[in-house]
């Protein structure tokens, strides 16, 4: 078995400990293992065309903050904490950009064609995507982490910095809103 294959069998926490010692191969395994999960996290958060940039920024932060990771914490919790901070920074930049652009021109903006959304439309899932899109940020985050990532609510609570009870109420409200949206359709 090659050294790379051996690394690929190790769990996230072990790999992170190796990354702390500047093991590039271990970092590469973590990137390959989690990049798709992060990509879809950002894509479902409402990023249009630059979600791969945000994935890259998240891994860069992971590298910068590797010393802060302690093996007692679940790796995905640590990674989502970083991803959420990247997303918050992106939202700030986006708001600043929208404020700059607002009212600058009446010229219609070209529509971005999202290939996955187009697939969703073809398979009749567009309404479901819209139902998710109309959720406020706070509710959508809970669905992302609790449903898509199937994280324990205690982890969701840590990542979002909200009490466990709030995770439960937000989850209920999010699903109820989506259900109502879909029933109206």
């Amino acid at each position: 078995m090659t050294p790379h294959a051996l690394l690929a069998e190790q769990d996230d926490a072990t790999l992170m400990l190796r990354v702390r010692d500047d093991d590039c191969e271990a970092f590469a395994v973590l990137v390959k293992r989690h990049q798709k999960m992060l990509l879809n996290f950002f894509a479902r958060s409402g990023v249009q065309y630059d979600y791969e940039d945000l994935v890259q920024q998240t891994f860069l932060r992971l590298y910068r903050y590797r010393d802060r990771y302690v093996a007692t914490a679940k790796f995905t919790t640590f990674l989502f904490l970083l991803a959420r901070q990247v997303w918050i920074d992106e939202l700030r930049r986006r708001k600043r950009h929208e404020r700059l652009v607002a009212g600058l021109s009446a010229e219609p903006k070209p529509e971005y064609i999202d290939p996955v959304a187009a697939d969703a439309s073809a398979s009749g899932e567009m309404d479901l995507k819209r139902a998710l899109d109309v959720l406020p940020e706070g509710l959508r985050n809970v669905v992302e982490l609790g449903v898509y990532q199937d994280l324990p609510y205690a982890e969701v609570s840590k990542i979002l910095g909200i009490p466990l009870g709030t995770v439960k109420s937000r989850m209920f409200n999010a699903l109820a809103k989506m259900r109502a949206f879909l029933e109206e359709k």
Partner: protein
Amino acid sequence: MNFQAHMDELTLADAAAFRALAGRLRAMPEREPSEGLTDRILAAVDAERNRKRPRFRAPSPWWGIAAAAALVAAAFLFYAEGPSRGVLVATASDPASGLTWLAANQETDGTWSPSKHGGAEVYRPALTALSALALDRDGRSESAARVDRACAALVAMQGADGTFGGSGRACLYNHAITAFALATLYPRHPALRPTLERSLAFVAARQTAQGGWDYEPGSEGNAAITAWQVRALACAEAQGFDAAKTPLRKGLRWLRDSARDDGSIAYHRDSSAHSDGLTALAAYALITAGKDFPGLSELGRHVAGSLREAPDASATADCYRDYAKVLAFESAGASARAEAVRRQMQAYQKAAQPDQWGSVGGKLYTAAFAVLSAR
């Protein structure tokens, strides 16, 4: 507790409906990472690792003096040593004289020699590329033949790493302008393809994690070189070079995030200095290269709108700045403002004012930029 346990606490009807909804959400198609994503992430981390610097240990007044001197030097280094007096050979309203002068001064090997015309020899690749671009605007066959020879010379200059000569910042400067020229000339010179591909590979390799480019490691990018690289990438992408797509998107993002509320763009993001030339160059790149991205063209017009036609009374002739302003105003649909800049260029030339960057490109700079600024 997780989602399933939470559902067990709800009424049967709610739990069934929410479980079905969650099942549908999980069944929605997911995006796949692009083929090169892992490599890009690892390259960005590698660059981060290489940026490590020794710890700052002993504060000393000399550090402050050295930093101040470095800042002053950096402000001028993009164009080298500063103003020099140059004889002007073309005006934006009379490009023919510039074309004639450029044609008469091409070397037998197809290049143009900056040192013969008041510029710095180290920038021969960039000035050959700019001169070729200027001659390419001329429809005559003899000019086309000269552009062919210039292209052959640029191909011959390229090294194995995709660059065109010079070291340090001169290497990056030469490469940025030459890559743009190659991408522009490619449709009429398809033999440039392998040269352009190697050049694009170098562009992608030198992009910072933040999406910009700079001369030295340790910076997230500077507006001057980033704007040129974005122009080169947009041109290449429009001609079907897929390798340009991702670096272009990231470069545009860097320019977008560098625009300040008043529309200006500085050399470095954290700089408080204002530069009309860089603001104009970035505006043009955002308007033209960003046309397929929501909001970027509008932002580019906002950036262009922050520029004045006339520079400060104390400003000196600056063909680079005025060329960029003409491009910015024309692309923003403000032709009257572009025309005012052309008149200003002409006034500088009539007054034989020394150009701000004469020591970089000498008469080659003024001739090429005048032709490229013409209507």
